[in-house]
């Protein structure tokens, strides 16, 4: 989650941020990453010769990384959307200069709003298709 906050603040994805202050987010996200590495390496000896005891094999490491990244992404998107709804209340929302799709919608809106926008666009597109057909 620290890495996702770092990405969000460096790429101005405001809809993904927990804290809207860039220096504070930078410091906290780097601290979270450093703490995560420190906790991992100092909680147990990861150089155990009996690998199965405290270590992970390559495939396990891949699965754990994918799962934790996915979980962190979902938690970040939901939590930041809730913060946008109840705390920031869209007071700092800027309008996009162009029609943006994908993750970069998060520069201008929260994930919940981006989802609503995507469904609205799909409904419009379906209505247009039916009308023309």
């Amino acid at each position, binding site marked *: 989650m620290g*890495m*996702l906050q*770092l*990405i*969000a603040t*460096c*790429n101005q*994805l405001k809809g993904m941020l927990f804290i809207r202050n860039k220096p504070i987010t930078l410091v906290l996200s780097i601290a979270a*990453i450093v703490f995560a*590495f420190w906790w*991992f*390496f100092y909680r147990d000896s*990861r*150089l*155990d*010769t009996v*690998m199965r005891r405290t*270590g*992970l094999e*390559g495939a396990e*490491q891949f699965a754990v*990384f994918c799962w934790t*990244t996915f979980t962190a992404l979902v938690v970040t998107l939901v939590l930041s959307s809730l913060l946008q709804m109840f705390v920031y209340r869209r007071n700092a929302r800027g309008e996009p200069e162009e029609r943006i799709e994908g*993750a*970069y919608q998060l520069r201008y809106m929260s994930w919940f709003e981006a989802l609503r926008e995507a469904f609205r666009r799909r409904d419009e597109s379906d209505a247009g*298709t039916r009308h023309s*057909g």
Partner: protein
Amino acid sequence: MLELVIQVDQSIILWVSHLVGKSAILDRIMILLASDYFIPVSISFILLYIWFMGRDFAERDKNQKATVCAAITIGIAMGFVLITNSIWRHPHPFQDMPQLLDPVTKYIFYPIHDPPFPSNSSCLTFATAAGVWQFNRKWGLILLVPAILMPLAKVYAAVYYPSDIIGGAILGILTAYFTSKIFMPALHVPVAIGVWVLRTLRVG
């Protein structure tokens, strides 16, 4: 020729292993760099960062292609490592020179069981760097730093011979070239068919 390579490999390992235990700071750094977790996870974080990076659509598209290319390259390269491992086997340095096992290998890393040639960690890191480099030169060069450091730390730990590392690096780089020039362009065909099928079903 092969005997000459083995002789050079062993003399390099013996020279490097003399450094172990001389400096506590260097040993701590090598323990961290040789670890199975530190550099692979750091590289994964960098790939995640590259995915979101870019000022405009064209740059983001290029960066996302770089990430996808690196991920596909890693998968294919690990398959090639598995195949090569089953064809060609030779002992690890700590098996050829058992005097290094306790003071060097067990101190810096651990005695691994996977076949050493080609080095899978070298193949993984170079595959990632070369995969990204095909689409983003700057980040490809940045990723070259951990790509070099991790295999070097494994040589320091007497886990791999330098030739294992070079073999893994060559395999990773060639796989990245194959992925970006042949595999990824060929991916457009099934993707285009899938998009066409989805559009047809939706209109119907």
